């Protein structure tokens, strides 16, 4: 919807209106203008497009990687499992977005590096979740039956295990979109993510804080938008969980 709005309104997020620098909401700039006289609304809409894109790409990539590792660990068990879980434990030892910050720092700013950095820390939760589920599914009767009938490993995984995991993974993915968006905004806030002049919510928040004394509406508008979006995505996650009736262990 946000993407549609941006297209419909035909606003230019980088259009500079020097008369409107840090102006409060008015009829020309519905939510006011930022420190360079650009429309905050236009930049918000543009920023959310990039944010959502990054969040979706990161979520898909981390899910693929995490699920793969989790499946292998859970399916084969034993030494493979121990080794893979040791690796995930090491990645888990870096709290929150620290690893993403570290990777973004050494790789340098930019959209691609941002995506890589976010992926580095995101796959772990999928790996753990998938491994746990696979471990229990592995010993279910239908999997054992299929195996004794000579089904190949890829077939066992794709046909007999993965479908049972899908609803849990969908729910996890919804929540992870929200957390990736927060992480992306955090990195952009620190100047490690999307670079000016491209709009990003994190970067806008940082500018907003900088001009808080003269133009408090800037930081307010951006912050409120971010909070609403996160809430909306989380509520969607809750709804999905109820619909799919997944019992999470959280």
């Amino acid at each position, binding site marked *: 919807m946000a993407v549609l709005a941006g297209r419909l309104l035909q606003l230019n997020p980088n259009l500079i209106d020097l008369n409107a620098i840090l102006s409060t909401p008015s009829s020309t700039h519905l939510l006011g203008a930022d420190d360079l006289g650009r429309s905050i609304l236009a930049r918000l809409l543009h920023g959310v497009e990039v944010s959502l894109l990054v969040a979706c790409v990161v979520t898909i990539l981390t899910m693929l990687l995490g699920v793969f590792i989790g499946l292998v660990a859970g399916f084969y068990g034993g030494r493979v499992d121990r080794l893979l879980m040791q690796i995930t434990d090491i990645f888990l030892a870096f709290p929150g977005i620290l690893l993403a910050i570290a990777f973004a720092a050494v790789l340098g700013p930019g959209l691609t590096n941002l995506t890589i950095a976010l992926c580095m820390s995101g796959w772990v939760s999928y790996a753990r979740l998938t491994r746990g589920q696979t471990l229990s599914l592995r010993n279910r009767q239908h999997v054992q039956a299929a195996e004794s009938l000579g089904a190949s490993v890829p077939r066992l995984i794709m046909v007999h295990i993965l479908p049972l995991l899908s609803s849990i993974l969908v729910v996890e993915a919804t929540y992870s979109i929200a957390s990736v968006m927060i992480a992306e905004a*955090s990195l952009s806030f620190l100047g490690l993510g999307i670079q000016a002049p491209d709009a990003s919510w994190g970067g806008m928040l940082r500018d907003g804080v900088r001009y808080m004394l003269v133009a408090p509406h800037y930081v307010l508008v951006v*912050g409120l938008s971010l909070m609403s979006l996160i809430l909306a995505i989380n509520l969607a996650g809750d709804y999905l969980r109820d619909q799919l009736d997944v019992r999470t262990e959280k």
Partner: protein
Amino acid sequence: MIKRLIGLVTVVFGVLLVTFLLIHLVPGDPVEVMLGESASSADRVVLRAELGLNQPMIIQFGHYLQRLAHADFGLSIHSKTPIIELVKTRYPATLKLAFVSLLIGLGVGLPMGIFAALKAGKWQDLMVSLVSVRLSAMPAFWLGPMLMLIFAVWLGWLPVSGMEANTSIVLPALTLGLGLSAILTRMTRTSLLEVLNDDYIRTARAKGLSESHVIIHHALRAALLPIITIVGLQMGSLLAGTVITETIFSWDGIGRLLVESIEKRDYPVTQACVLLVALSYVLVNLFTDMLYQLADPRVKLVYAV
């Protein structure tokens, strides 16, 4: 316990390896990136030798471990001072901030959670969960500026940033603590509600014990386990959150040092900061496990792989 320690050692080793490899991920030549293009070739040779970048990786890693064993993080490229000196002044500030935030989180979260559990289903419960859901959707870089705007700019009660005044810690600690309290509130409420219907609570009540005695001595004790787990897990985001919060409020802790070092491309400092925060988290987790055993003697420390 032994198994737990072995697991700990591998994790610490892995953390060391990852932080060591970080500097090798710098695209191109790290020396070039750090010194800039204008540096003389003599300077480059010196830095390269200093960082040991002209040796095989495995030997570099060996040296890295050896230096760390002597609490030597190397020199900051920017200020030429030993990193350990920088860390010595910055790390306590972060610890202080994290500790006060934790106190706020517990001080607000536990009573709110108990209150909500006792009033379960009533409007008070609804209000508490409404507030906590909204609070938990507020990342630090949004809650922080908001608190700053309200209490420092509009009301002028507290300093905007820095750490000179005694009250400077209030806003950054609130930023971190309130987020934590929101999660704790929900966790306390759920785990207390689960316990409150148990038989032994009914027995305690039937014995004629006062309601507050039942809640504090019987119910809360059993509800404590999941709460400790959550606190331990949340310490991670608390530690990571200090990076953002310290930047917002100009709090001179390790998080701000990290951000500054990134801006200056002072990679050895970045490396040291990442390592320290990660190791702190590992220690916190170990401590949480030990607390677990204390809270529930039935729990034996088994390192589940």
